[in-house]
Structures are given as structure tokens and as C-alpha cells.
């Protein structure tokens, strides 16, 4: 029993240590050399109402590397499951689907997950997203490894302002969409 218990713990510790190393490495490369790895910016979510089963997450992922990368998994302590979703409006109908096989981040390009399009879907929430209480999520990339990302949580009012802001920048959103819809 004891060996069975310690093995996973050791594995976990090693995993954590490795993740930390990867995160540090990715950050160092991203910031210092701008040649390798992915950079995350503008990570935010909106507050959820008490009964909400899910919360949306938005962010910009920039790939400074020479080859395409993929966001293959996302995990957060307060969410039993996190998926990347597309959201489209067909006339007045909301159509939301999980992105299969990860979200591709083309080399030398940025993918923006923003209201009105792709988002992270935090599901099975153990507690709601509360305005001004940031939370962490771990994003796993095929090449860049794991990155711990802090999501700001905006109030509904702030998030509405952010949505208007997003609408003003259709060009960049459409640009990013061109890639991962391929």
C-alpha cells in the first residue's frame, strides 16, 4: 500500500518540478529571445452568477517559435474540466462546440480567444468566478510545455466594456480565426 501511495506522490512532485522548469524556461525564452515558446497575454474571465455551471476564459496566445504549436490541455483547480470551445452565431442561433485535437497556434502568429469567438470553457466549477479574484490555470502546449496563467476576473460591467472593445478590433480577431479554423 505504501509504495502504491508514494509512487503517485513522487510522480506528482516530479511532474510539478518539471512543469515549473518548463514554465520558467518558456518564460525566459519568450521574454529574452522572442524566438521560442509561446507567450500568453490579456488573460481574463467574467464573473459568473452563483448558479452558473460554466465560465468563459479569454486570452491571447502568441507563438514566437519557428514551428506551429498546439494548446492541447487546460487545467484549473476550481474547474473539473476545461475545454477550448468555438462559438459562432448562425443567424440568431448560438452554436458552441469543443475544439477537437487542440488549438493550433501558428508559428510567428497570435491567436486571440475573445468574446464572440473561441473561448476557454471552465466547467464543473467548484466555486464561481468572482470579480477581482484572479484564478490560475495551467495551459499545456505540445512543444512549449506547460504555462501557468493568471486570469483576471472582470465584473459583468467591465466585461461588457471589453466586448465593445473587442468589436472595435474585428481585424485582429478575424485574422486569428483564419488559422485555427483550417
Amino acid at each position, binding site marked *: 500500500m505504501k509504495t502504491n501511495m508514494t509512487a503517485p506522490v513522487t510522480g506528482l512532485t516530479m511532474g510539478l518540478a518539471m512543469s515549473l522548469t518548463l514554465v520558467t524556461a518558456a518564460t525566459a525564452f519568450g521574454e529574452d529571445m522572442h524566438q521560442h515558446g509561446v507567450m500568453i497575454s490579456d488573460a481574463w474571465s*467574467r464573473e*459568473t*452568477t*452563483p*448558479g*452558473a*455551471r*460554466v*465560465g*468563459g476564459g479569454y486570452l491571447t496566445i502568441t507563438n514566437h517559435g519557428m514551428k506551429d504549436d498546439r494548446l492541447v490541455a487546460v487545467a484549473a483547480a476550481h474547474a473539473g474540466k476545461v475545454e477550448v*470551445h468555438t*462559438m459562432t*452565431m448562425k*443567424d*440568431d*442561433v*448560438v*452554436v*458552441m*462546440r*469543443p475544439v*477537437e485535437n487542440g488549438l493550433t497556434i501558428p508559428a510567428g502568429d497570435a491567436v486571440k480567444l475573445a*468574446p*464572440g469567438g473561441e*473561448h476557454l*470553457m*471552465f*466547467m464543473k466549477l467548484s466555486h464561481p468566478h468572482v470579480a477581482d479574484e484572479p484564478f490560475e490555470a495551467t495551459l499545456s502546449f505540445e512543444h512549449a510545455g506547460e504555462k501557468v496563467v493568471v486570469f483576471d476576473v472582470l465584473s*459583468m460591467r467591465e*466585461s*461588457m466594456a471589453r*466586448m465593445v472593445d473587442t468589436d472595435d478590433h474585428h481585424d485582429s480577431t478575424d485574422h486569428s480565426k483564419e488559422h485555427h479554423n483550417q
Partner: protein
Amino acid sequence: MKTFRIILWSAVGLAVVVVLALFWTTSQQRSSTAQTGLLSNPIPLEQPGDGASSGNRPMNGSPFSLIEANGEPITEAAFAGRPTVLFFGFTYCPEICPVSLYMLSTLIDDLGDERGDLQAFFISVDPERDTPEVVQSYISPFAHNIRGITGDLASIEALAASWGIFVEKVPLDDGDYTVDHGASILLLDRQGRFRGAFDHRDNPVIASEKLKLILAL
């Protein structure tokens, strides 16, 4: 020639009868509209280029028997006599539903005293997961403006369809499911008739004017 004349005059006679019948039907409809003091145009509030398409939306929804989020039964009778706003959504919706509810609630707040007896309902398109308690909790920040409705799936699908709101449960690979649903916010007059729509993509100023118009009808 004689036969031709008979046929010709019969055709003219038939045409006159048809025109008179059409005129009579139209005038009957007009007078019934006039009696209730409503505009003859069934969709007077739509603006060109609206996000919420209402082109072929029915004017009347079907009767229903569902459960309000407070646990009480609710029927179409709740829509009678008051300007009513309807929005279909579900609690597994991370963006459109909370944003739409927030927008609607804020618009109602902003009406202030002009709000009158306006009422608004959030109707779950995922009643299997959205129990009355879950719906009540979900709308709690907006409960002063918006009431929740849930019930059995077939009844809700029938109600949504009767208003021209698309609802489709879509199974996902992992055994889970999602619900594609129309996001239009429907505006009904005091007779429970469809008068316009907007959605979260619309300019709040225009949406607010539409709310005021159903209050004025």
C-alpha cells in the same frame, strides 16, 4: 365568339368575386386590429440590419404549462396584460446567456420609472440540467427584473418552436451534450403578441427604444 364572350365574362365575374372576398377579409382584419388599438404592422419595431432576425417569426406562441424557477406552475396566462420579454438560454452557456441577461436587466434598470409593468422571463432550453433551483440561482443577480422558467424538455421545445426560436440538443463525443439555441430577446405586447426582437449584439440604445415601444403599445 359567343362561347368566348361567356367564358370572358365568367372570368371577369370570378375576378370581381375574388377581389371583393379579399377586400372583405382584409377590412375584417383591419377593424379587429383597430378595435384593440394596435398598429396594423405586426412587427413595427424592427430596424434594418438588426442582429436579431425576426423575418418569419410567428406572431403568437403556443399555450404552455411549465414551472417557474420559484417552483410555482406557470402558463401562457402569465404573459397576458403586461408587456413581456422572453429569452431562451441555459446555465451551461458561458457567454451569450449571461451577457444577454445582464444587458436585458441593465436596460430594464435604466428604464427607471418608465419600466411600468414590463416583465421579463429567462426560459431554460436545458431543463434536464436546469432545475428550478439552478435557474433561480443562475438569474439571482437579475431576479429583480427577470423571472426564470423551466419544465419538461418537450414542452419547452414546443414553446420555443412556437416562437420561432431554434433549440437543438447536440450530443458531444465525450457523452456530454450542448444545446444550440436562438439568442433573440423577444418582445411581446400586452396581448402576448410578438412585436420585435433584439439580441446581445445590438446597440443598447436601439434595444432600449424597442423596450419603450412595447411599453407604449
